């Protein structure tokens, strides 16, 4: 397995994310419908589609593509998802910008930057039943795997595994922030929409990158 991929190759991760969001528009809205207002997939698809159009005319590498995606989400979605996922992708872009090729040290830098960016604007933490329940363990497992000396591809696997566990753990949580918190106890027993989209994003990103390391 290789230990890095080029910015140019890494662009495919962004394209894969956009495709994944298109495919999951209905699924994400359905999940949001149980304890939210049923539009999470619609909101994400709207923003990612606009970003797709922006990117179509550009020959952008991974970092630039992440930055354009992030800025589009900030500029176009509004609500909470615009700033949250907008910052998510802008940070992926800015933390990786000077690096070509991209290795696991850079990836860790990217993930930590995302976490810091989100923690700076949202008080959400694990246990609140939000996308942070997916993101925090995902980032932690990547860092742990790297500290254990694992290869880039294995670190990505650990990241996906941590994210999946965190995502599934939202099922029995009571929502503490956002619309679902209106339901109190009744928000248990259903997965969180933002945690779901975050898992799909981390999974898609991780698996695409693993392909590039083969």
């Amino acid at each position, binding site marked *: 397995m290789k230990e890095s991929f080029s910015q140019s190759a890494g662009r495919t991760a962004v394209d894969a994310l956009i495709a994944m969001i298109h495919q999951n528009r209905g699924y994400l809205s359905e999940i949001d419908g149980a304890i939210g*207002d*049923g*539009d999470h997939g*619609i909101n994400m698809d709207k923003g990612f589609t606009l970003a797709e159009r922006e990117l179509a005319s550009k020959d952008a590498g991974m970092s630039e593509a992440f930055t354009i995606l992030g800025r589009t989400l*900030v*500029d*176009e*979605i*509004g*609500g*909470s998802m*615009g*700033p*949250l996922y907008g910052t998510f992708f802008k940070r992926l872009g800015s933390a990786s910008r000077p690096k070509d090729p991209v290795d696991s040290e850079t990836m860790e830098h990217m993930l930590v930057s995302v976490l810091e960016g989100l923690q700076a*604007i*949202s008080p959400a933490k694990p246990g609140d039943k939000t996308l942070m329940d997916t993101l925090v363990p995902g980032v932690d497992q990547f860092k742990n795997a790297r500290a254990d000396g694992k290869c880039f591809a294995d670190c990505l696997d650990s990241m996906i595994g941590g994210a999946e566990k965190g995502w599934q753990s939202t099922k029995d949580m009571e929502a503490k*922030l*956002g*619309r679902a*918190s*209106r*339901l*109190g106890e009744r928000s248990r027993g259903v997965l969180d929409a933002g945690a779901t989209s975050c898992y799909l994003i981390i999974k898609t990103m991780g698996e695409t990158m693993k392909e590039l390391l083969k």
Partner: protein
Amino acid sequence: MQRIINNPDFVVEEYLEGFVKAHGDIVVPTSNPRVLAYREAPVKGKVGIVTGGGSGHKPAFTGYIGKNLVDAAAVGEIFSSPTAKSFYHAIKAADSGQGVAVLYGNYAGDNMNVAMAMEDAADDGIAVRTVVANDDVPSAPVSQREKRRGVAGEILMWKAGGAKAALGGTLDEVIAAAQKAIDNTRSVGIGLSPCTIPAVGKPNFSIEPGKMEFGIGHHGEPGISVQDIASADRMAEMALDTILPDLPFAGGDDVVVLVSGLGATPVMELYIFYRKIEQLLSDKGIRVHRSYVGNYFTSLDMMGITLTLMKLDDELRPLIDLEVYSVGLKQR
């Protein structure tokens, strides 16, 4: 779903186009289709007043653009915060070089987007300060007042800040006046039936017929309790029992009262409610300096009512009394 719309995905765009055509004497479009401005903005020598919020609360927010009130408003999707870009463009539209006061409601999305917009405005050298409305009593205990949501009290905050700016206040003075206004304002909402977002097609929460949700928020955020629907007089008592001790308001106070329907409640009922409010305040020796009764801050087609009280002092009183001319509020 009995609505008057075309494509549900374009309700906000189309409403804004119709609004601008209907009220060209007060409101003008800007280069950003999600930002409307006062015809005379930016007003030379005056601090700019900006607000913004999700659609579905008409007349809020675009209905309060006007003379001595709001200079520019950022418009979001239904019940969603506007984008950072819209807030930024509203700031630019309102700015005449004296700084801009962004007066908006305490919601997670709005907080994040305003913060991002302020960064961009700072890059342009525009001085921006904010006041975040948090008048909704049921959303958090008084010891955590900073967590409370902003509801109809925002209107009185815009009134005070807008007047201070019109009377020549500096940015710091405008912010202080708006902050004092909202700090002296308390609100509570009572929901009787849910609202339906066109793109979603069904109510976004439920209230059983025969029940009322006391303390409801204006996107349907949970209240303090769900109970059997009470008489209008009893609702008035409960509303004042919630609000009065929270500031507290006391005998001898001078107040502004604002009663707003939530959209579908017949206006006649707002007056039946206000009748008891006025009587109870009078019994307590609280004098009503000015009353606003009507649909001032709604939630699509929700049935229900909100009560807002603001305590006046010698600084706030003339700010409330200054004339205004906007689509949603005209006062001479």
